[in-house]
C-alpha cells in the first residue's frame, strides 16, 4: 500500500471505480499502470506539452444526467449516442433502425481479435488509465458491404467540477462497409474537469470510415485523446479534428496502414485564445506499398495561447510507391502567442513522393491594409483573412448541417463569419 501511495499515477486514479465485470483489456491496462509515470517534457513525444496542469489535480467520476437538446445538431438526422462524463446514457440516446450498424458496450469487442490488432501499439499513461477505468463507451460495428445510412453522432458532455470522463470507443468497419461518424465534445457547468478519451477503430479491406471530431469544451477543462486506427488494404479513412476547447488539449492520433492501396486523410483546425495549449500529435505509419496520405493542419493562435503540431509519417522499407502530403500552417494573432511545429518524415523506401511544409506567421499586413482601404474595419478584415486561412480545412467537413453548426460556433466564439 505504501508503494502505491508514492506512485503519482496510482494516487491520481485513487478513488476511481472500475466496472465489476473484468476483461483482458482492463486487467492488462490496470497492471501496466503500476509501472507507469506521467511523461515529462524530457520525453520526446511530450516535449512541448506539460501535463502537470492535469496531473497535479485530482478528479472524480460522476454519473449524472443532462438535457441533451443543446447538443443535438439541427438537421444532422443522425444516430445519437450520448455520453455524460464518459458514461454511456442509453436513456438519452436515439438510435435509428439500421441493419448495417450494431451498437454494443465496448467490452463486447472480442479480446483475441482486439489483442492482435493492437499488438505492437505503444500505450501511454492516459490511454492505460482510460482502459483500466473506463466505465462507458461503445463498440460500433458496421457490417460487411453495408453502408450506415445516417451519420453516427457521438455526443460527449462533460459536466460538474473536477470530474474525469474516460469514454472508450471502438469502431469496426468490416470489409467494404461504410460509415460516417461525428464526435462532439462539449461541457456544461464544468469547472476544471478532464476528458480522457480513447477512440480506436479498424477499417477493414475496402471499407470507408470518415470521422469529424469537434471539441469545444470550456477553457478551464482538460482534454487528452488517444486515437488509433488500423487500415486494411484498399480502405479509406478520413478524420477532421476541430479544436477550440480546453485549457490543455492533446489530440494523439495514430493511423497504422496495414495494407496496399489505402488512402488516409487527416485534417485539423485548432484555434486558441487566452492561455490555451492545443497540441496535435499525429502519426501515419505506411507499412505497405501503393498508398496515399494527405494531412493538413492549420492553427490560429491568439493572446498567450500555444499551438503544437507534431506530425510524423513513417514509410517503411518495403513500402514502395507511396505518396504522402503533409502541411501545417499557423497564424499568430498576438505577439505573445506561440507555435511549435515539427513535421517529421521518416522514409526508408526509395519510391516515395513526399512533401511537407510548415509555416508560422502573422496575418498578411498588405492584405489587411487592402481590405481596410475598402472600408472594412480592422476586426472584420482580420476575420476575413483568418476565415480564408482555415477555410480549406473547414471545407473538408462535407456534412452541411455539421458545417453549419461549426460555423455558428466560430461566429459566437470569435465573431468569424465564413
Amino acid at each position, binding site marked *: 500500500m505504501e508503494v502505491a501511495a508514492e506512485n503519482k499515477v496510482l494516487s491520481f486514479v485513487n478513488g476511481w471505480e472500475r466496472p465489476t465485470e473484468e476483461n483482458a483489456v482492463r486487467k492488462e491496462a490496470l497492471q501496466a499502470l503500476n509501472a507507469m509515470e506521467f511523461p515529462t517534457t524530457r520525453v520526446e513525444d511530450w516535449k512541448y506539452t506539460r501535463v502537470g496542469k492535469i496531473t497535479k489535480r485530482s478528479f472524480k467520476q460522476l454519473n449524472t444526467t443532462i438535457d441533451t437538446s443543446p447538443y443535438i445538431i439541427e438537421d444532422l438526422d443522425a444516430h445519437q449516442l450520448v455520453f455524460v462524463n464518459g458514461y454511456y446514457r442509453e436513456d438519452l440516446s436515439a438510435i435509428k433502425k439500421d441493419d448495417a450498424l450494431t451498437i454494443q458496450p465496448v467490452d463486447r469487442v472480442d479480446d483475441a481479435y482486439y489483442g492482435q490488432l493492437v499488438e505492437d501499439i505503444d500505450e501511454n499513461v492516459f490511454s492505460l488509465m482510460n482502459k483500466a477505468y473506463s466505465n462507458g463507451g461503445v463498440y460500433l460495428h458496421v457490417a460487411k458491404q453495408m453502408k450506415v445510412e445516417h451519420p453516427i453522432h457521438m455526443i460527449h458532455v462533460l459536466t460538474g467540477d473536477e470530474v474525469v470522463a474516460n469514454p472508450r470507443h471502438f469502431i469496426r468497419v468490416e470489409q467494404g462497409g461504410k460509415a460516417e461518424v461525428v464526435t462532439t465534445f462539449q461541457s456544461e457547468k464544468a469547472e476544471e474537469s478532464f476528458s480522457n478519451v480513447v477512440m480506436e477503430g479498424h477499417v477493414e479491406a475496402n471499407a470507408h470510415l470518415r470521422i469529424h471530431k469537434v471539441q469545444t469544451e470550456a477553457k478551464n477543462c482538460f482534454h487528452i485523446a488517444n486515437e488509433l486506427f488500423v487500415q486494411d488494404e484498399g480502405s479509406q479513412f478520413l478524420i477532421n479534428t476541430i479544436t477550440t476547447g480546453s485549457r490543455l488539449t492533446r489530440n494523439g492520433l495514430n493511423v497504422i496502414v496495414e495494407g496496399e492501396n489505402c488512402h488516409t486523410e487527416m485534417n485539423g483546425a485548432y484555434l486558441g485564445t487566452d492561455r490555451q495549449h492545443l497540441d496535435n500529435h499525429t502519426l501515419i505509419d505506411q507499412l505497405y506499398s501503393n498508398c496515399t496520405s494527405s494531412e493538413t493542419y492549420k492553427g490560429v493562435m491568439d493572446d498567450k495561447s500555444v499551438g503544437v503540431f507534431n506530425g510524423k509519417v513513417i514509410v517503411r522499407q518495403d513500402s514502395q510507391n507511396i505518396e504522402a502530403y503533409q502541411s501545417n500552417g499557423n497564424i499568430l494573432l498576438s505577439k505573445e502567442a506561440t507555435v511549435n511545429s515539427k513535421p517529421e518524415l521518416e522514409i526508408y523506401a526509395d519510391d516515395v513522393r513526399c512533401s511537407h511544409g510548415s509555416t508560422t506567421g502573422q496575418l*498578411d*499586413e498588405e*492584405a489587411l491594409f487592402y481590405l*481596410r482601404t475598402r*472600408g472594412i474595419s480592422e476586426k472584420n478584415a482580420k476575420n476575413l483573412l483568418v476565415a*480564408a486561412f482555415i477555410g480549406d480545412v473547414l471545407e473538408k467537413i462535407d456534412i452541411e448541417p455539421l458545417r453549419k453548426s461549426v460555423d455558428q460556433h466560430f461566429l459566437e466564439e470569435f465573431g468569424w463569419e465564413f
Partner: protein
Amino acid sequence: MLTIKNLHASVEEGAEILKGLNMEVNAGEVHAIMGPNGAGKSTLAAVLAGKEGYDITQGEVSFDGKDLLELETEDRAKEGMFLAFQYPVEIPGVSNINFLKTALNEIREYRGEEALNAKDFMARVRKSSEIVNLDPKLASRSVNAGFSGGEKKRNEIFQMAMLEPKLSILDETDSGLDIDALKVVSDGVNKLRSKDNAVIIITHYQRLLDYITPDYVHVLADGKIVKTGPKELALELEEKGYDWLNEEKETV
C-alpha cells in the same frame, strides 16, 4: 473636398519622401499627378489612405472638412476615399463578393443606411462588372488571386464602381494595360465621374489622359508639386521628359 497643406512624410527608417506637398481638389474635378519614378507618388497615395509605416512630420490634410490624418484607414474609406492600388494585393480564400459585401455593408452602416439585400447587391455587382467589362465569374473568385495584370486593374475599378467613393485615387491604373484594356478602364472611370465626386490620376504616361481628360496636371518631383498646369502640360511632359523642370527650377 481635399486640401493638402505642406505635407511632409518620412518612412520609418528616416528618409523623407514627401517634402512639403500642397494640393487642392474640388468636387467634379479630375487631377493628374505625373512625375518620374521614385518621386513619391505612391507614397502620397499610401499616406492619404492611411498606410502604416510613414511618419507625418509636418502639414495637414482635410477631407470634406475632416482632419484626414486622424482617421483610421477604414474610416477614410467610409468617408468616401478610394485608392486603386498600383499593385493590387492577392488575397487567396477571400472571395471578391464576400469581401465587397462586407465592405459595402460597413460603409452603408456608417452612413446610417440599410444593408443591401442579396438581390440588390447582386444587381449592383452585375452593373459594376459591366462598367469595366469584368467577367462576372471573376467577381466570385478570390480577391485578385491568379488574376492577370489587366484583370487586377479592372478589378480595382470594379470595386470603385461598387463602393461609389467621393474621391478616387488611381495609382498607375494604366500601367500594364494594352490599348483596348486602357480604353475599357478609362471609359469605366468616365462613367463613374460626376459633379459630386473627384478623381486623382497618378500616372507617368500621358496616354491615359487622352481618354480621361484632367482639369489640372501636377508634376510631383522630389516629394513636392513642382508645377501645375492645364491638360496640355501632360503633352509637354511627354515630349520633353521631366529634366527641363529641374533646369527651370534651378534658373528660378
